[in-house]
């Protein structure tokens, strides 16, 4: 055998797998729908449809809707990884990956890394659309970057949950519909689009249980005060906890496959 083998290197393998996932996305522009077209469409639709009714005007509604759509986009982009993983597992390609002398966690890790790039694109698209519609955060650009990173980290943490779902589910279709429903319930049963006090008591209760509410509140607070609030810290702790619980579970489910 005159081909040099460097053996499996976890980081290199993961990087290659992430590159593969990005290539797939680039070749399949459909995969950009949820991170590019969806935030633009939702921002425009919700902004111009509900702005007047909810906040008395589009401009007044933007500080509410921009973080709302941002997090909704994170949720849907993150939920895509579950279906993607299931699809991969069901294809012959995965057999090949498993039969290679590579770090066996690389396909999963590569997927999650590629996802963070999708999340970054989604964040930039959401915030830019908001800006073009007239959204002008009072705080500096640094804080906008900060909330962007907070959103990406949250989306990334959640994608581990969806990854687990994908690994446990029977088919990509099942993951897709389960993810879509979770995404819709989580984003609408929160303060993403409407002020909490406008909701009925039972709905308010549900919204208060919904972690999405806290993430959006934290982002709005940062954008309003220009300081790292207590809520923002709480969100970071929550995200870390989600990763700490769901990453090992996903790895376990992945090994089981």
């Amino acid at each position: 055998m005159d081909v040099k083998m460097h053996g499996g290197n976890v980081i290199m393998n993961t990087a290659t797998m992430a590159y593969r996932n990005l290539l797939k996305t680039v070749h399949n522009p459909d995969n950009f729908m949820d991170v590019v077209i969806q935030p633009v469409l939702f921002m425009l639709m919700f902004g111009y449809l509900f702005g007047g009714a909810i906040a008395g005007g589009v401009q007044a509604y933007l500080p509410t809707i921009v973080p709302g759509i941002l997090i909704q986009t994170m949720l849907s982009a993150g939920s895509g990884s579950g279906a993607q993983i299931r699809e991969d597992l069901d294809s012959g390609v995965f057999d090949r990956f498993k039969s290679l002398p590579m770090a066996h966690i690389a396909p999963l890790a590569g997927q999650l890394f590629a996802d963070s790039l999708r999340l970054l694109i989604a964040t930039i698209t959401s915030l830019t659309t908001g800006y073009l519609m007239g959204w002008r955060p009072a705080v500096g650009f640094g804080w906008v970057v900060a909330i962007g990173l907070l959103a990406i980290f949250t989306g990334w943490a959640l994608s581990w949950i969806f990854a687990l779902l994908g690994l446990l589910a029977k088919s990509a279709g099942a993951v897709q519909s389960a993810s879509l429903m979770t995404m819709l319930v989580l984003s609408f049963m929160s303060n993403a689009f409407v002020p909490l006090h406008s909701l009925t008591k039972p709905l308010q209760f549900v919204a208060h249980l919904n972690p999405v509410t806290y993430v959006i509140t934290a982002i709005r607070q940062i954008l309003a005060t220009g300081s790292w609030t207590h809520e923002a810290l709480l969100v970071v702790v929550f995200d870390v906890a989600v990763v700490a619980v769901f990453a090992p579970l996903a790895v376990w489910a992945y090994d089981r496959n």
Partner: protein
Amino acid sequence: MSAINAIEVSHLTKKFGQKTVVDDISFNVRQGEVFGLLGPNGAGKTTTLRMMTTLLKADAGHVKIFGHDTVKEGRLARSMFGLTGQYASVDEDISARENLMIFSRLNGLSRQDAKQRTTELLTEFSLENSADKALKNFSGGMRRRLDLAVSLITRPTLIFLDEPTTGLDPRTRTQMWATIRQLVKQGSTVILTTQYLDEADQLADNLAIIDHGKVVKMGTPAELKQQVGGTKLNFTVGQATQVTAAVNLLTSQVPNTIQRTGQRLSVRLNQVTELTPILASLKQAKIAIDHLSVQEPSLDDVFMDLTVGKN
């Protein structure tokens, strides 16, 4: 080196729920040979192959690849073989070149080596012209070629092919066979599963016939054919009313069972010399026959004889 078997499979067993899919299978594959796992659909060929290639955990038994246990030394064992799965195990969404690059990198090749190997393989498998096209536009044959090319990135001396020609047209199948023969010529050991008897006959040095998860027979294609017995005589009786008379006549001359399908009769001859008296007595009895054929035994007969299929 030649003392070590390329593969040693011993007492391999796999259950899916209550159903035993692979039932205590054992066989050895010598270096440099083509070993065929032949069997009907659902016989357990692919499951056996998946256990051999570490994709599936066995419930019992073990597999050694060049002397290395696939469970205890999984990574080492995996570095010694290439696998081409039953369903094209390449990425549909990316190009042939990208597939080869990515799998080269995952196999541990440096970027430089990966690039070089990719170019080599694209040329070797006549894929240069479509190297950068999306795989969606590939024909079945091109896909298989790419698939095989990917398995050969590290120039493994052991290659697993799971139904390498299923779904290919005759021309592409012949090309695939030529490629496989070329690999063997270069010193590779090939283990393949197939449900095509002619494929096994054409390629395999040794065969294991599998049915219901068990090895029902093992040997060279020639040995297996011999076991089924000699030449087979087939003919159609011209008039339906004479069929019984023809059967009685055959029974009196040949000790073997006569198969009857409508007016078509077939019987196995122990010796070719039995043929002339049969024809003579048929003529004497004024039984007109049609569509006469005399067949050398084929693996088809072995297959039909030994396997009962899924139900």
